[in-house]
């Protein structure tokens, strides 16, 4: 694959007079081609494919929880927050066939907690990523399109935000407000959207802005709003998909840290599981109570790394210069 096929160089070569439907069709066809070519490069990265598989497994885990609860697991025993394993005399109890990952110090089933939390992590990560992408594409496109004062203001704001240590800021915020999952996703999304992601998407938007079809759209009488939302933003989306991955990593990580420190208003999550083990004093008991910390700790690390590595593999798709010599 040569330089000419760089994925974002393709401009939709269309006759504007042919109408919306054709535009949509051309776009679909292009998107399909981009996806297909991109996928071909992506699958060359073994790490990327492996990470994608890990994400898929976690997604299956998230879906399995409600199914298990509705079929084999009775809520009074297996509820991740209020359940209690009556069949055990001592808690935390080690894994066996009824509780494959054992129970925590409050007698709750660890596997159920793990699966339940997976769902919240996905919801958190994806919400934060969607907010980030929504804001960042708009900010990037607007800054690139208008330039001048608007651009400077938005970019200075972004500089300010990336200069802030995010976790520390969230810790401060948790002292002032009651943070739940939704607010957390929102805050992380907004910080990401106005921060680093906006800067990167803006530089991409700048290169789109100078493409002939933007000029053509302007000449054909398209308003600012029309050009930004119909022509610039759709072309930014593939790149923003890449940065979604990094936002997901950040969001899951931040949630876990704050939960671990006991600063969030959340019922159950991987971070809370470790927090519970920690406050119970089981953490340094080491291998004797491994099931209290290893499943949750490993899940956080695995899912964060998986999203991060998928992001990096996508980076090689998007950025041909990182690829190995044409091989």
């Amino acid at each position, binding site marked *: 694959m040569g330089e000419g096929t760089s994925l974002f160089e393709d401009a939709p070569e269309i006759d504007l007079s042919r109408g919306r439907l054709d535009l949509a069709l051309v776009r679909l066809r292009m998107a399909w081609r981009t996806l297909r070519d991109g996928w071909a490069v992506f699958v060359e990265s073994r790490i990327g494919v492996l990470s994608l598989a890990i994400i898929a497994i976690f997604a299956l885990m998230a879906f399995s929880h409600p199914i298990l609860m509705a079929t084999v697991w009775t809520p009074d025993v297996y509820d991740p927050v209020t359940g209690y394993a009556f069949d055990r005399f001592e808690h935390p109890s080690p894994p066996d066939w009824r509780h494959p990952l054992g129970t925590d110090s409050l007698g709750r089933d660890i596997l159920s907690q793990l699966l339940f939390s997976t769902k919240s992590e996905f919801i958190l990560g994806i919400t934060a990523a969607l907010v980030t992408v929504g804001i960042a594409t708009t900010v990037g496109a607007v800054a690139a399109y208008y330039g001048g004062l608007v651009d400077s203001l938005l970019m200075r704001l972004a500089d300010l935000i990336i*200069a*802030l*240590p995010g976790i520390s800021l969230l810790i401060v915020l*948790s002292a*002032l407000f009651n943070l739940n999952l939704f607010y957390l996703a929102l805050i992380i999304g907004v910080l990401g959207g106005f921060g*680093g992601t906006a800067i990167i998407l803006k530089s991409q938007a700048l290169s789109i802005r100078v493409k002939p079809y933007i000029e053509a759209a302007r000449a054909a009488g398209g308003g600012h709003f029309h050009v930004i939302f119909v022509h610039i933003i759709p072309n930014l989306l593939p790149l923003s998909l890449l940065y979604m991955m990094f936002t997901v990593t950040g969001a899951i990580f931040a949630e876990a840290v704050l939960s671990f420190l006991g600063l969030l208003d959340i019922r159950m999550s991987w971070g809370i599981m470790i927090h519970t083990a920690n406050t119970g004093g089981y953490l340094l008991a080491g291998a004797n109570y491994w099931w209290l910390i290893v499943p949750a700790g490993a899940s956080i690390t695995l899912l964060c790394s998986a999203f991060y590595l998928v992001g990096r593999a996508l980076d090689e798709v998007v950025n041909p210069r990182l690829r190995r010599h044409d091989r």
Partner: protein
Amino acid sequence: MTNYLLRRSGQMVLTLFLIVTLAFFLVQAQPGDYAAFYSLNPDIPAEAREQIKASFGLDKPLWQQYLIHMKNTLTGNFGVSFGHYPRPVIEVLAERLPRTIVLFLSATAVSFYLGFFLGKAIAWRRGGVLEYAATISGATLFTAFTPAFALMMIWIFAFKLGWLPVGKFLDPLIWRGAEVTANHVFSYMLATAAAFVVFAFLTLLVARKSGRFATGRLPFLIIAAGAVAIPVAWAFTGIGYLALDILRHMILPIATLTLISFAGTMLLTRNSMLETMREDYVMAARAKGLPEKVVRDRHAARNALLPVITSLVYSLIFAIDGSVIIEGVFSWPGTGMTLLQAVRSEDLPLVMGAMVFIGLFSLLAHVIVDVLYVYLDPRIRYQ
């Protein structure tokens, strides 16, 4: 160059202003009344309340409160800590800041060097086992759940192997009967470290200026001699064993922070190297018949360093967050742990003070990175 630095400093001042403003409005926006915090807190004696109220202008309109807040922040008056009553916030923070700085500086210095070195190596030999191993372990460490990783380090090195202490800043058993305070010893340690860095830097500078001398081993021998002389000198002070205790407590947190933060630099260096390796001047360097190592280090890596330095800001911010978490896990009494304790005990003045301190800290990181960049890139230096 002056223009560049002036512009950057202007931006810094603006950023600082915005951080302080943000701090004010966050406090205003939180549910509950800041004034009530002070006036209703039973820990604070009644006679002190009036004075505090007056110094913060808590009975004045909002805009005046804001101006007073500005003035107070700039003069370092963050009020009195609830948790450490009656010590002022600034005093609590000033005592703990050096500990954070040491943790942070040593960890970032080591992790930067390690990350740059490994990133350079894996980019130069693409597709090797090393690349896979380094990318995977790097990304895992980078995204590893920091608290769990820190606990694992404690478990392995302090519990299982028993090599290092579990956490905290010092061992009270050793310090019983000591006539000096920990801060006293620590400040001497800091002074020694600073003096050594200056000494090493000057030696290298002299070596570079005097031509031939640079190629020999002599400058490194001189620096090594200095490094040996320091512990010897400390042994004669009588407080050497106390310093050693602090040092032993420092190792694990620094190692942990290093491990979680080197990967960022490594992966970045790799990408940056891959781009510079395609540059014509790298090809030219090879064509000139320079040895591979010279081509790699003096040309490819030297240029790959520039974007890495630009992004060093993000690595530093990452490390600041990391040090907050690590201080929490290791009970290392620095600014980060102060922040966590203050948040848990709802010690608002201390929270805000710590936030401004951490903000200042990250701004300082920005300034350092800027100066470094100007020093490293002649295109900006000579403008």
